[in-house]
């Protein structure tokens, strides 16, 4: 399997992306903002389609759209009761726009399939460098703000009381989510990027009770998911995204079951 350049590249990109999504996913789940990664998935699709239409890289189209809208969605959804309806409204708008952008561009439907469902095995060397660089930017930012981001995510009231700049930290968080969606979509596609951004973090809650362990379990599950997906995809010729989704969903249900047994 590793004698092929495309598989080596796919593994390197997936590893960096899985670590990034595993880390950001813990913050997403702690802040109860899983809906945000769903919405940004759809916005990412529109952004990639826009990139195709105007002739820029789909990745940069995605970054552009998700960055602008994550701040918008974040502020629109600050009131819990508004979050569901604002999410639906924004999702509908962007899916519609994405379909229009693709229809107006001259690309084939297989291109749309790649954006929606991922095309990690077809990643070019140039894309690989872009993705790894972005993943490193996200991870370094998280390391710099780690204590403050953790405090604000796990105890926003306490963080505010301790005088932390919570609005600034929210902007950092939303920016990191937007970038993670953009790079995560390269592996599992924009339609399913929330699988990597929410499930490992949510599953980790069943197995860990400290900040460090939550990150370790989430990164571990995320990495295991993409590696298992790539290996099974290679041998079966079935879509990698399918295996990743199944792996993460099964892990989640095992965690849920363990939790149910423990509490009963």
């Amino acid at each position, binding site marked *: 399997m590793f004698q092929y350049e495309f598989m080596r590249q796919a593994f390197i990109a997936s590893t960096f992306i899985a670590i990034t999504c595993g880390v950001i996913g813990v913050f997403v789940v702690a802040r109860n903002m899983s809906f945000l990664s769903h919405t940004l998935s759809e916005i990412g699709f529109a952004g990639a389609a826009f990139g195709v239409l105007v002739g820029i890289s789909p990745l940069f189209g995605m970054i552009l759209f998700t960055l602008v809208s994550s701040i918008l969605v974040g502020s629109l959804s600050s009131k819990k009761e508004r979050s569901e309806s604002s999410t639906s409204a924004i999702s509908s708008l962007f899916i519609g726009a994405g379909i229009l952008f693709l229809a107006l561009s001259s690309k084939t439907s297989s291109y749309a399939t790649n954006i929606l469902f991922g095309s990690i095995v077809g990643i070019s060397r140039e894309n690989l460098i872009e993705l790894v660089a972005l993943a490193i930017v996200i991870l370094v930012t998280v390391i710099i703000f780690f204590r403050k981001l953790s405090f604000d995510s796990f*105890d926003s009231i306490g963080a505010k009381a301790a005088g932390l700049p919570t609005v600034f930290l929210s902007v950092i968080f939303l920016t990191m989510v937007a970038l993670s969606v953009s790079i995560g979509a390269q592996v599992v596609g924009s339609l399913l990027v929330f699988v990597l951004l929410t499930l490992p973090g949510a599953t980790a809650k069943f197995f860990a009770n400290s900040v460090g362990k939550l990150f370790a379990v989430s990164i571990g599950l995320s990495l295991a998911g993409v590696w298992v997906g790539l290996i099974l995809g290679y041998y079966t010729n079935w879509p990698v995204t399918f295996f990743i989704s199944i792996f993460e969903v099964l892990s989640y249900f095992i965690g849920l079951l363990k939790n149910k047994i423990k509490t009963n």
Partner: protein
Amino acid sequence: MIEFINLSKAFPDKTLFKNVNFTLEDGDFLSIIGKNGTGKTTLVKILMGLEKPTSGHIKFNKSKLKFGYVPQFRNIETDYPLSIQSFVELNLKKTGFIFKNKKDRLRLRDALQKTGLWDLRGLRLGLASGGEKQKAYLAQAIVNNPDVLILDESTASLDGSAKEKLMELVKSLNEEQGLTIIFVTHDYLLAKKFAHKYLLFDQKQIEMKEDIASLDERVFED
């Protein structure tokens, strides 16, 4: 020592308080008493530097006073994943870069022991009782060894015996560690039992009394 000098706070449509003057000595146990919406929390926020007064100022005897603050509400649900220790650690200002060093571990242990949570440190906070949760909030507030501990209606959600237990703990921090306490409440009985002096927020005036014994239920009469 903290000196409030002619402190006023007004919004375009409402004056919260005007020309407040009082002095808080090191090791004091002050209760700020008054009805909701009279400006108790705003005064505390000004003290902590989170809000600016309209006029007046606060003088400290130390260049940088450290505050520990226990807010009224917290959103900890039953599926909250962190253990009591990890929750307290969120506020731990580490002297090491990302990982805790020996000093950090000692401070964390100290906060957990002082609040009687050491044996429960591995328990998920979401599964802890109301009283244990409140102790964890207290431990989080004292983990950086503050000079002043502020409890903002922190006992409001607790039942009678849990309230007393928490306040006994606060009293021991005040007496044994010399921690200055500011206890914001509208529970005058609790204030009377534990505080040494009080600051009364009335709609008409703000009054500082050195003698807690003079506090009675009439303070809430209109």
